[in-house]
């Protein structure tokens, strides 16, 4: 069953009975995940080159690794393009089979004499191409609004003046880490649905944190996250989509789903979490600080209703992640498990049970106490 379907079952039969009937519950999410990118290996040219700088369709990729390896970050911008095209578009174009221009320069060495190359390449022609996303599937997220009298363009979308709207970004009751809030079953090595293909949890996500206040078993702030890896060649543009966040930059919408084995009654209770019981903090994004005050907390059921109340005012809400796609992913994963084409894996290592996310201070070398 999906994490949405199981809610009614647990409500009518109770977690104990439901746990006997259901083995696996599938989850899904589809939203902007900036912390994404792909490792690519282009193969060696004749004569060979040690790529020092590389561009794909004019978008720089990081190549400070071996000669023809590169990492294309989703948010990297095409040079002189004013934020219309970026790394995410390169990734989407590769998946859709388009021919991309590849340009690289170098200083030339005895073993790699070539100093520049300009060629065309497709995903099929590459040796390896895999997504490696340092922070995906955030456990809960913020709700953004704007107190000022001007429009704000943020990674949470366009925020209208005077609390004109509020945006949020989570699949809520379908979101993977909301359904296994303590990561009892999700750990390093967990096989997942990633971008339409198969992927794996490779590490804890960056900024992984377990310190947020908890309500109904679920953290009420952005908390845990996962680093994931998966073969780009097996992915589909149905579940990987380039996004342009006007006035902010480029991001990548990633479709991700995690199967959760129902180990016991407690696990069953966790996956039966409902939007009504999951709360997110509302922040004023006009405050240009890392520590914004929480204005209030609202449930995902309220957010999904289309409006919330803020300071006595009715404020329209918009989701930035697609619940429609999240549902599609959970259903697709369910079908593959039923057919036996997707096998569940046990984690080889649990994610940290306690961890906090540290800020960055401006300090002198002398000011650092070791």
């Amino acid at each position: 069953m999906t994490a949405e379907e199981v809610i009614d079952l647990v409500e009518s039969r109770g977690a104990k009975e439901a746990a006997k009937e259901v083995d696996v519950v599938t989850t899904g999410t589809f939203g902007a995940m900036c912390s994404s990118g792909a490792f690519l290996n282009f193969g060696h040219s004749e004569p060979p080159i040690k790529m020092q700088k590389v561009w794909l369709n004019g978008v720089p990729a990081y190549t400070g690794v071996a000669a023809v390896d590169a990492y294309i970050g989703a948010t990297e911008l095409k040079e002189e393009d004013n934020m219309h095209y970026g790394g995410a578009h390169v990734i989407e174009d590769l998946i859709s089979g388009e021919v991309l221009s590849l340009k690289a320069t170098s200083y030339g060495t005895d073993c790699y004499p070539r100093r520049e190359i300009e060629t065309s390449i497709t995903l099929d022609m590459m040796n390896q191409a895999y997504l490696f996303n340092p922070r995906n599937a955030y456990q809960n997220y913020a709700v953004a609004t704007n107190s000022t009298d001007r429009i704000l363009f943020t990674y949470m979308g366009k925020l209208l003046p005077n609390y004109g709207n509020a945006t949020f970004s989570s699949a809520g009751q379908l979101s993977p880490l909301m359904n296994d809030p303590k990561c009892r079953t999700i750990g390093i090595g967990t096989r997942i649905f990633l971008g339409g293909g198969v992927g794996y949890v490779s590490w804890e996500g960056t900024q992984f944190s377990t310190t947020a206040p908890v309500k109904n078993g679920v953290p009420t702030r952005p908390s845990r996250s996962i680093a994931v890896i998966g073969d780009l060649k097996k992915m589909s543009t149905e579940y990987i989509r380039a996004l342009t966040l006007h006035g902010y930059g480029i991001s990548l919408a990633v479709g991700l789903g995690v199967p959760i084995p129902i180990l016991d009654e407690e696990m069953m209770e966790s996956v039966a979490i409902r939007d009504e019981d999951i709360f997110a903090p509302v922040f004023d994004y006009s405050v240009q600080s890392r520590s914004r005050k929480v204005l209030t907390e609202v449930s995902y059921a309220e957010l999904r209703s289309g409006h919330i109340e803020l300071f006595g005012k009715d404020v329209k809400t918009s989701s930035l992640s697609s619940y429609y796609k999240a549902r599609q992913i959970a259903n697709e994963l369910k079908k593959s498990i039923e057919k036996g084409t997707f096998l569940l894996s046990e984690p080889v290592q649990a994610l940290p049970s306690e961890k906090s996310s540290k800020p960055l201070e401006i300090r002198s070398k002398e000011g650092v106490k070791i």
Partner: protein
Amino acid sequence: MTKRKFLMSFTPSIVNEPITFRMVKDFDLMLNILRAGVDERGGKLVIEIEGKPSQIKKGVGYLESSGVEVKELNEYVSKDEDRCTSCGACISICPAEAFEMLKETYKVEFHKDRCIACGLCIDVCSPNAMKLEIW
């Protein structure tokens, strides 16, 4: 009574004609100007016309015979269903409530008839599914 939205284009030669006045007086129509602009090609007006269907037809006929180019507006705003991910970012932005998150399927539906072609949804759509070609 029905409401329809049109884009009217004037050449510089008929800019002096009081056509909105004639539309109200002669055809008993209610006009709501949604957008107006004049550039080197003449003037453009996005207008909502409310009235009896037969009167709207006559009014539009009058405009066309006066040399005004008239096109129904909903041809100018479009949603690319393949690009749309049904996230819903457009919903809280649209002043005309032309977008609806369907309750059962969570698919975003675009109601062309409610659209006033303001363009607010264009840059808010991150997968670039919304297109507006007016001016």
